[in-house]
């Protein structure tokens, strides 16, 4: 039975490697085919980030504190209500 085990192990590892190598190839292929979409998406995100980071950083930090409190209050409330 140990022989069968060895056969199984060899086949198994082969299939695992074949599967994941093919996967790598497919992923690389799809990355290449979709490159223009991805780059456009990236540019849009970059533009959006620049815009939003232009806002006053002070106001932002205050906002974040308020938000954090609101969210934590909300969570506590949920726990009580439900």
């Amino acid at each position: 039975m140990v022989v069968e085990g060895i056969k199984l192990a060899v086949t198994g590892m082969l299939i695992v490697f074949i599967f994941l190598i093919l996967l790598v190839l497919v992923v690389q292929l799809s990355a290449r085919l979709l490159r223009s979409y991805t780059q456009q998406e990236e540019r849009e995100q970059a533009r959006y980030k620049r815009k939003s980071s232009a806002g006053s950083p002070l106001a932002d930090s205050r906002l974040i504190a308020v938000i954090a409190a609101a969210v934590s209050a909300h969570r506590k409330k949920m726990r009580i209500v439900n």
Partner: protein
Amino acid sequence: MLVTGLLLVYLAIRKQFEPLLLLPIGIGAIMTNIPLAGMGESGGVLYYIYAVGIKTGVFPLLIFMGVGAMTDFGPMLANPKTALLGAAAQFGIFITLMGALLLSEFVPGIQFTLLDAASIGIIGGADGPTAIFLSSQLSPHLLGAIAVAAYSYMALVPIIQPPIMRLLTTTEERAIHMQQMRHVGKAEKIIFPLSVFGLCIFLLPSAAPLIGFFMFGNLMRECGVVERLSKTAQNALINIVTILLGLGVGAQLSATTFLNVATIGILILGVIAFAIGTASGVIMAKLMNLVSKTKINPLIGSAGVSAVPMAARVSQKLGMEADPQNMLLMHAMGPNVAGVIGSAVAAGVLLTLKNFVV
């Protein structure tokens, strides 16, 4: 056995050993072993849960779907070569399988069939739903021990892996910085689960339930048009099924099936499986560095065993030890999630035994 159940509850609560699973499993183990209560016997509630959800394979698949909906394959898509580390780490599974066969050859009192050995090997996949699904199909009598071993060793990853990783790498290797990841587009993320499922269909149909549900979950996450289904798959559904799965798995932990020398064998083989998986991931990374010009830090190889995201965190921690500026977490997530696919593929191979043996 009540003590075993209580121990699992203790580990879950006090040591935070994968509590989401080990707490229900521990309680299920206690319930099923209460003398005269018959909760795990035909007509008992745990029996119904087991019969409906585990024997059929439905519960682990639904959990795998939820895991898929929670998994971001972005880091792997950004650096696809790291997926090979997730392949290499599956050596743990198959070497353990052979170990189990050797044990039953040479240790009296241990009699593992080929199916049993396969189920034990899958512990090295470091992936709960896969281990439960496979052993429920191949060796239901070992299901309890295998699930306990798999989840326990996943929780012990921060203890099992570091010495092996240190042994196989130099400080210089551990300090290797990896370059910032590229942006991964929405379309790539949608195509990915379909590609994996497609490969599975043509290469290895026996892995289709596991890979199919995993990738269906991921597709719901990434496609952007069924957010309410994705959210439910990640929350209410996976939580409900986790509670029931845990109780049902725990119900398989009865004295006759658990308190025997086979369980000791499983526990020993399980830790060997994790160790070999870790080592082969690291060694694979070093081999890849021999042929590739962009070096990868071999510490991320160990994350290929899966045990998401614990193993990736271990990579990050050891990387920072060697160089506090070294941020490996996201890079380790690549092999980490590839390891989930890798062990599902391995499980697919092992599932074919069901038709040939018996």
